[in-house]
């Protein structure tokens, strides 16, 4: 029941028993650094999981779309870190790059001939990819949570 959770939250808040941890508030303040003014948002449009060896969960395939641009991301979680291999289509042309972003680390990659890119060793948690094209507004995928 919806009201129960908010009422319980109000009680918890007033009890002062479980205050917001300092690192959670600090992370919230730092999130502002991730704002990209007037970026276009690409929305999730498809999801699938490949089966890995011995039935273990394999890479997650996530598609994001917006008018004129599609991101296909293959996200692999291993050794506690995240690897992202992706492709932006249609191929955006010369001088384009992507930022593969987490709240703690951003890796910048030039796009290969067919719009591919890869970034490895990202911390688990929230993830977004931003495509920068000369003469266009940046396009950012919605944030998705990736954890082992």
């Amino acid at each position, binding site marked *: 029941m919806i009201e129960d959770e*908010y009422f319980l939250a109000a009680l918890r808040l007033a009890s002062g028993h479980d205050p917001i941890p300092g*690192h959670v508030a600090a992370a919230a303040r730092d999130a502002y650094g991730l704002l990209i003014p007037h970026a276009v948002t690409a929305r999730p449009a498809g999801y699938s999981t490949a089966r890995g060896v011995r039935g273990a969960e394999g890479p997650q395939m996530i598609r994001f779309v917006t008018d004129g641009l599609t991101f296909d991301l293959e996200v692999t979680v291993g050794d506690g870190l995240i690897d992202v291999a992706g492709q932006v289509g249609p191929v955006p042309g010369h001088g384009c790059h992507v930022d593969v972003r987490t709240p703690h680390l951003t890796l910048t990659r030039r796009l290969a001939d067919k719009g591919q890119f890869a970034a490895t060793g990202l911390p688990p948690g929230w993830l977004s990819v931003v495509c920068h094209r000369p003469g266009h507004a940046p396009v*950012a995928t*919605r944030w998705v949570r990736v*954890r082992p």
Partner: protein
Amino acid sequence: MPDARQPAELVLAAASGDQSAWDGLVARFGARMWAVARACGLGEQDAADAVQGAWLRLLEHLYDLKDPAGVGAWLATTTRREALLLLKKAKPGPGVLDVTHEPDPESAVLEADGNRLLWKTVATLKEPCRSLLTLVATDLGSRQVAVRLGLPVGSVGPTRARCLQKLRTLISLQETVQ
């Protein structure tokens, strides 16, 4: 020193590049978002993810928020939604992450300045409600609550719902009187 600006002003200033306005939003609403995530039953790491997720959603919608004055309710609702998605282990498919919803009206209980009123009202409830709400609000799981209060484990959830219903009724009566 708390930021004296109204929530709508903070949103507009943050959208114009003012980090201090964003910090003001975090100071104003961060604690209640944490309380919502924890009230949904999340452990510390997951609650931290749900709260962070709600802030990232606000970044995505900083320029097109329908009602900047209602950003507090929007953040509480978005936190709850992220928390429930996390509990369900929902995968990021179409529609799952869309934030086109309106804020839950029930989240208004978090806006009230007089949350102490809630506890004063809890103190007027009979047992087992008084002890049960005290225990569930301070982090004890159903099993521990049951042991402390001598209730069957299976009855903690329904009893909790009944006690919260009583509390809600008393609070709304008080609001009517005021």
